[in-house]
């Protein structure tokens, strides 16, 4: 079985769950023997692992990773460098949030940037990507097209039509998650078009499935939920101070409206009224970062809230290792892979109920993102009560191990088989 996959980010440079998910999923699909051709925009760097790059002068750069046996990468050159600077946990430099914006960042920021800027730049890039994907697809042979998130839907639709192969779109987030009620019409239209053109829609949670059914008019039977998973990567080698004086509460993610950073601060303020020896670390950056730094200062807790900027690979591990509690206060979170990663590193997790992961995970604390009192109440409990922390981290770890990419890949494979079968029976008619 061969799939033509369209994505926007892939490790080592990622800005969020999408890259991690694409990596974990394709690696597991690779093991199942599914042949994957993965198309990426340039600027995402080389795909992870030992990579050979073939023909860099060619606009259609082909690379092959040794970590994957059945996988081939196409890197499309694009005038717009989608990940110049921010958005990357594992980026080489600690670039500041002002130096550039990734495509996803811009998509997330949406309205803040102004609709002209947004639609102009991005839609061009999206169309460019689609055109080049069609050229690559013309020379390829595959059974199914798989597109990750809205920026690749036009490409997915075009390739599907050109090659007469069924389309599967994979929804890692929707415009409603990123922009709340201030939905960008152009983006919404693309999402809607992609979902309707697809033979099957994959949602990362039931929460996301509900949005797809409710806001995009897709019949429930056409939407399959495939949960993300976590790759257990051991403890790694990292140095943490032997004895830390303060307890640490960690926020790790983009500092954007969607992630609820201001609720995190408001809860922190309340925690500090009761517990003194605690520090709040906000790892990541985003369009709201300047505002959040100012907010912390104006609340008088500036000395207790530390901003690290983007963390690279080992620093991410170290942050988890030092943390006594991981908090994901997202306003809207289709899945929330970082919570699963924290659990997998034995860190107790407090997650917002407005997240996909909350519907499947039991050994974590949950709270409505807006319920500051309850968020603080639960943070304090974890900081004050060692038995709570121990039980959460022990049981949470075991639970996280049940989320395997192999299982997700198997589900995707079944979906492929279903749509291929459908397409065949249609042809016969």
């Amino acid at each position, binding site marked *: 079985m061969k799939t033509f996959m369209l994505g926007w980010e892939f490790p080592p440079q990622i800005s969020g769950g999408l890259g991690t998910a694409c990596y974990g999923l394709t690696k597991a699909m690779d093991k199942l023997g599914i042949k994957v051709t993965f198309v990426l925009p340039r600027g995402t760097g080389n795909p992870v692992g030992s990579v050979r790059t073939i023909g860099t002068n060619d606009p259609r750069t082909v690379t092959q990773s040794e970590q994957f046996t059945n996988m081939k990468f196409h890197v499309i050159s694009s005038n717009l460098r989608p990940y110049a600077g921010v958005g990357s946990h594992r980026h080489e430099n600690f670039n500041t949030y002002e130096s550039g914006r990734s495509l996803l960042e811009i998509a997330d920021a949406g309205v803040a940037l102004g609709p002209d800027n947004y639609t102009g730049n991005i839609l061009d890039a999206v169309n460019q990507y689609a055109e080049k994907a069609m050229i690559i697809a013309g020379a390829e042979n595959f059974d199914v097209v798989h597109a990750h998130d809205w920026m690749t839907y036009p490409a997915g639709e075009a390739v599907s039509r050109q090659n007469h192969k069924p389309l599967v779109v994979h929804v890692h987030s929707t415009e409603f998650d990123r922009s709340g009620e201030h939905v960008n019409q152009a983006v919404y239209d693309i999402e809607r078009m992609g979902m309707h053109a697809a033979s099957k829609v994959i949602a990362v949670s039931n929460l996301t499935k509900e949005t797809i059914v409710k806001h995009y008019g897709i019949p429930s039977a056409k939407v399959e939920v495939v949960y993300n998973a976590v790759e257990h990567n051991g403890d790694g080698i990292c140095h943490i101070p032997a004895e830390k004086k303060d307890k640490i509460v960690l926020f790790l993610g983009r500092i954007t409206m969607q992630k609820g950073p201001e609720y995190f601060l408001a809860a922190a303020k*309340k925690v500090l009224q*009761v517990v003194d020896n605690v520090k709040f670390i906000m790892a990541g950056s985003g369009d709201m970062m300047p505002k959040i730094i100012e907010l912390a200062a104006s609340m008088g807790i500036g000395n207790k809230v530390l901003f690290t900027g983007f963390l690279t690979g080992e620093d991410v591990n170290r942050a988890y290792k030092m943390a006594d509690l991981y908090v994901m206060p997202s306003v809207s979170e289709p899945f929330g892979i970082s919570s699963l990663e924290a659990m997998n590193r034995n860190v107790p997790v407090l997650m917002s109920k407005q997240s996909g992961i909350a519907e499947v995970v*039991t*050994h974590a*604390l*949950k709270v409505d993102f807006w319920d500051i*009192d*309850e968020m*603080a*109440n*639960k943070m*304090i*409990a974890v900081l004050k*009560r060692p*038995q*709570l922390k*121990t*039980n*959460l981290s022990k*049981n949470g770890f075991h*639970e996280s191990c049940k989320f395997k990419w192999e299982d997700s890949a198997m589900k995707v494979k079944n979906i492929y088989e279903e749509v291929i079968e459908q397409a065949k029976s249609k042809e016969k008619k």
Partner: protein
Amino acid sequence: MASVCFYFQVHQPQRLRHYTVFDHSDNYLDDYKNAEICRKVANKCYLPANKLMLELIHKHRGKFKISYSITGVLLEQLEKFAPEALITFKQLAGTGCVEFLGETYHHSLASLYSKDEFIEQVKAHRRIIRQLFGQTPRIFRNTELIYNNGLPPIVDQIGGFDAIIAEGADHILGYRNANFVYRPPGPTRLKLLLKNYRLSDDIAFRFSNRDWSEWPLTADKFAAWINAVNGCGNVVNLFMDYETFGEHQWEDTGIFNFLRHLPQAILRYPDNNFKTPSEVIRTYPPVDTIDVPYTISWADIERDLSAWRGNSMQENALAELYRLEDKVKNTENPGIIDIWRRLQTSDHFYYMCTKWFADGDVHKYFNHYNSPYDAYINFMNVLDNLDRSCSEAILKKPSRIYELSAERQSKTSNDNVANSLCFSERT
């Protein structure tokens, strides 16, 4: 001759309200939810089941007999929220065919932590049963049938009891079966009645299970199983939650119809009859001594304490609760002592159980918290505030008394260790 001995456990906890670390009021109970659940269970179970029991007792002219153990915390709630249900229990008490058993007033785990407190609660329960039903309990039933060799001496010390009810767990019976009267080891007059868990659970748990090979269970079929005990037993002890009727097994499963036809189906065999626990021990002599060095209970498959003491959060909550005992009692403040006792109800710790949590099962069904972690957080917040109230109350007392009580506190904390050892499993 096979006697059927029914005992129904009747209990509802007083649930705590949502209580955060920022709360400081001494109003800890969720009255709204407690009233709601109490009325719901009264309507679905207590009222219809009591009505049926009364009918059956009259119909069989004294040949159908049953027994109840009703906790003090439920009796209080019935009085407040469902007085009509309490009236029907009193009517049952007046038939002469219903025996009321003794237990801890608060459905607590005090037997495992504090002998003094345990004795006080058993006596308090005896008072309320006598007051409401005009009977003095002669048979003792510990919370969740928690039992080990340490219990009979304490029950003897309280006095007035003839027998203890316990789980007929396979690992304490060995080759024996639960269908005889037994006695504990040591110099005691007490006898043991052991639950026939297979036949009890056929009604309590499997009745409506369509995957069960014996479904549907009819009164005739069940009576035949009871009759099969003849020759290898004297008594079939059917012990279960009263909420089995109408609440755990809903009315539409046919559970009330089953119960309606059961007495005549059983009495159809001339050798069989119904007896209350006191009649059972008067009729049948004990056949053997049962040694129970390790604590057993009637909960879950394990039949041990792991539903309440299975993780470190539960252990911590219980230890902290009983650590407060002397401080609470030193306040001599009835309100504080009262709420401290309500916090001892075993359900609070059951809610913190993580044993089967991810699989979702009965633990979830009885749980108004979203997770065991929430239950622990809430309980500890309440306990912290109670501790603070104690400190304030003690400070308000005249200083002379305070010094005395501080002295007593250091002394009795040692006693407490001794207490808990006398009735905890050997490890």
